């Protein structure tokens, strides 16, 4: 079953790059730690798109297996990261990353 006709690999790479750069921009621009986490998720998904596109281009499944493992790592990262965020909120009463300045002398 062939359903993609006029789509080149560059289209998917451009989409992947766009999402990745949106993620980087949000990570640098926002201060809310939860939004920063979401930007990390966006970047991981951008990479997943590129991997699936290459897997499709070469016609084998290895890229999709990589995507599975990235999903595994992302799920583990979110679980631990949100637990850290809860602890941060409990101690600082805010999720602003600028409030984490206690190491400053």
């Amino acid at each position, binding site marked *: 079953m062939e359903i*993609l006709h006029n789509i080149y690999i560059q289209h998917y790479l451009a989409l992947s790059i766009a*999402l990745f750069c949106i993620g980087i921009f949000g990570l640098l621009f926002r201060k809310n730690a*939860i939004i920063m986490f979401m930007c990390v998720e966006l970047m991981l*998904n951008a990479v997943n798109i590129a991997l699936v596109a290459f*897997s499709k281009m070469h016609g084998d499944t290895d890229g999709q297996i990589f995507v599975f493992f990235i999903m595994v790592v992302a799920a583990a990262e979110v679980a*631990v990261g949100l637990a850290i965020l809860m602890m941060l*909120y409990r101690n600082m009463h805010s999720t602003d990353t600028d409030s984490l300045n206690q190491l400053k002398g």
Partner: protein
Amino acid sequence: MLTEYAFWLLSFIAVFSGIAVIVSKNPVYSVLYLIMTFFAIAGHYFLMNAQFLAAVHIIVYAGAIMVLFLYVIMMLNLNSIEIEKRSSIVKLLAVVASGLMLVVLAGAVPHAEVLIQQKESATPAGMVEDLGIALYRNYLLPFELASILFLAAMVGAVYLSKKNLNETQN
């Protein structure tokens, strides 16, 4: 032709809601826009004939991870609009850094026009059967290591989100 339109529509939705994630003031709206992005990405997986991956993507991301995000936002009571004060030099540096990254990555895309489907594969390489064979035959060790990673993450999350143990004992 129809799939071409679907590609552009899904790409537009993904990029638009990705931008909306980082410009919304309310974290709840950010989560909802991120779910929209994930559905668009799942549509892309469908277009690329990776049906099982699309289903898993929706289940894991939209079903589990984003619910976790919403739950944490609810528990922390963050759904009020906060005014963020970033100094303008940091904002400028963020724009410059991400723009430079965009330039570097866009320059790395080769100009060779490669169609996404080059080889005529006999079997579609996205069904659960092919993925299962590849996962349990060639990638068995990473698969088992992933379970250890999940166990460690689960223990870590439970331990971190508990109250301080010494305080509760005293």
